[in-house]
């Protein structure tokens, strides 16, 4: 029983971690290349989920919906970059925070206006429902395993994109010296739009995939956004490798903490109290982890700008 629980929760942690990575990789790329802090990243997560839910409902195909969701998020991302974000690159961080906070308000209320306040239904297709039996008699949902698989595929694809392709070369060059690659004749503003749309698309994909697991509603992107911030602060802002490691660390620590801390406190406390203390402490665990890591490495585990 307890080994089964451990395996199951570890898998849950990795699954949360991979979805966080989809969010965090976009955030960290945008910061690394353009030096921009983007609070509206959670809105792309929401846009992806809503577009997927709407298209899936009308076409009946989850895969088409998923593609549409990712495309919609990327397109909205590109549009936002062209209209607003572009004006913010040379502004102080305070302006960036406020303008993107304004974008959150606009996106959240706009979505509420169009789709209403009640959550939208989105469920995984029938061929992805059900369980698989893993070694040790652990029964685990196929859909969650699929999420882990998607996370691994995207990680590899991002690695190849960034280290092997021409676009990746430009992104890396942009991270180390923005002015220089402009001087070398690279169309910087196009590069920025592409990078921003790529990040938005990944966030949209994460929103759609998680939306089928939980629910599609206004404000769904905000808790994930803040977790993604913790991830990139731990990993080092601007580093994809750091984002991957940070995401897995946060996912696993958060999931295991929520399960095992109440059990741990039950060993020497009355059960009702132990549940409260355990839950409260578990909710704080990743922030404590972040504080400890920052106390030793103020720039995160892998800082790109060192």
């Amino acid at each position, binding site marked *: 029983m307890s080994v089964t629980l451990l395996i199951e929760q570890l898998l849950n942690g990795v699954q949360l971690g991979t979805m966080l990575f989809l969010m965090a990789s976009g955030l960290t790329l945008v910061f690394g290349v353009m030096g921009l802090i983007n609070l509206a990243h959670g809105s792309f997560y929401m846009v992806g989920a809503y577009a997927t839910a709407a298209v899936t409902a009308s076409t009946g195909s989850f895969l088409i919906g998923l593609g549409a969701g990712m495309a919609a998020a990327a397109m909205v991302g590109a549009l936002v970059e062209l209209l*607003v974000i572009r004006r913010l690159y040379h502004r102080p961080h305070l302006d960036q925070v*406020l*303008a993107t906070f*304004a*974008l959150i308000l606009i996106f959240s209320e706009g979505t509420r206006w169009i789709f209403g306040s009640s959550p939208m239904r989105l469920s995984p297709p029938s061929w992805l429902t059900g369980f698989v039996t893993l070694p040790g008699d652990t029964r685990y949902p196929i859909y969650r395993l699929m999420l882990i698989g998607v996370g691994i595929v995207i990680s590899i694809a991002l690695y190849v994109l960034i280290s092997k392709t021409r676009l990746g070369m430009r992104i890396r060059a942009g991270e180390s010296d923005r002015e220089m690659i402009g001087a070398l004749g690279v169309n910087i503003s196009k590069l920025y739009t592409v990078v921003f749309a790529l990040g938005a698309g990944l966030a949209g994909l994460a929103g759609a995939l998680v939306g089928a697991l939980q629910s599609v509603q206004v404000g769904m992107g*905000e808790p994930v956004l803040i977790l993604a911030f913790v991830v990139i602060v731990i990993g080092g802002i601007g580093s994809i490798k750091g984002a991957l490691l940070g995401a897995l660390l946060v996912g696993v620590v958060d999931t295991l903490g929520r399960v095992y801390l109440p059990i741990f406190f039950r060993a020497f406390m009355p059960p009702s109290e132990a549940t409260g203390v355990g839950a409260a402490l578990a909710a704080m665990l990743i922030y404590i982890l972040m504080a400890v890591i920052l106390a030793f490495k103020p720039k995160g585990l892998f800082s790109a700008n060192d």
Partner: protein
Amino acid sequence: MTNNTSLSNSASRGTTVDAAPAPKADRHFDRKGLVQMTLLGLLLLLPVVAYFSGQIYYVNLASRITIIAMAAVGLNLAIGYGGMVSFGHAAYFGLGGYVAGISAYHAFDLTPFMTWPFSVPGSDNLLVIWLAAMLLCGLLALAIGAISLRTTGVYFIMITLAFAQMIYYFANSWPTYGGEDGLPIYIRNTLPVVDSSDALTYFLICFTGLILAMAITSRLMKSRFGAALTMARLNDVRLATAGISPYPIRLVAFVISAAITGLAGALYADLNGFVSPTMLSWHFSGELMVIVILGGVGRLYGPLAGAVLFVMMETFLGGVTQYWQLFLGLVLLGVVLFAKHGVMGWLAGRERNE
């Protein structure tokens, strides 16, 4: 205009010292002073009128504006004067609120707040609550600031946000004081002589608090400490070269800023008779920043102007459409992209150091 230039020219040549006062600066001050006095005067006058014509709702609305303005005065000290973009001031606002709530809860139940290592009873005395709120918020800010101020820029923004979220989730999942349902304050906490349950009296208490907070900020920024803080914002290497380490200066400013916001939180909980994790949410941190920016960052009266504008929009636009935040977003986007100096910059002219 030509007169002014010739005067300042002769002054800069150093011919006559007693002709030095620049008339342009004086006129500038007059307009600014006029706007500021109008703002304060209206804030004080309107609730009095409303009270005596029986409109208690508007008295409480004015109290709300005053308290939010006070919280923003605290944040303005960190962001505007100290250059520390804290995205987590809701933590102090909420903690202040919870101090009022928890203290009243124990005073009502006649149970001690803690028994070990020494016994701490609850209290419904506002003076005790305010002191405790400022003290605890200061301590929390000391801990958070000590870690966060080791970093700068985006890291600082995200870390202050993350710590505030930590407090938020803690309050959300800690069942003793209501968890996510919040904690009611059944009877407003009391003061020795005056009747705090009267709406106008409570407004005057809040108003006094706001004036004190602004006076303290103003005095602080005119002192040596304020000069050091300004220099820490503009050029910390230069400050260090002058033999003053920027870190403790920033930390002290951060702690004072949190204590002011915490006191506002305690006042807010007593105004509403209710405290919940919403007061701790990152949305409130964001709104507080919005208020500071809308009003004009780093200006003494900026937070007040911003709070008036924000609460008015919330109340009147919110009465017209439930999607008022969409319009708030558009206004904010416009202000950030096109009008960098806020309402006070627009009404009262730019500050000299801008």
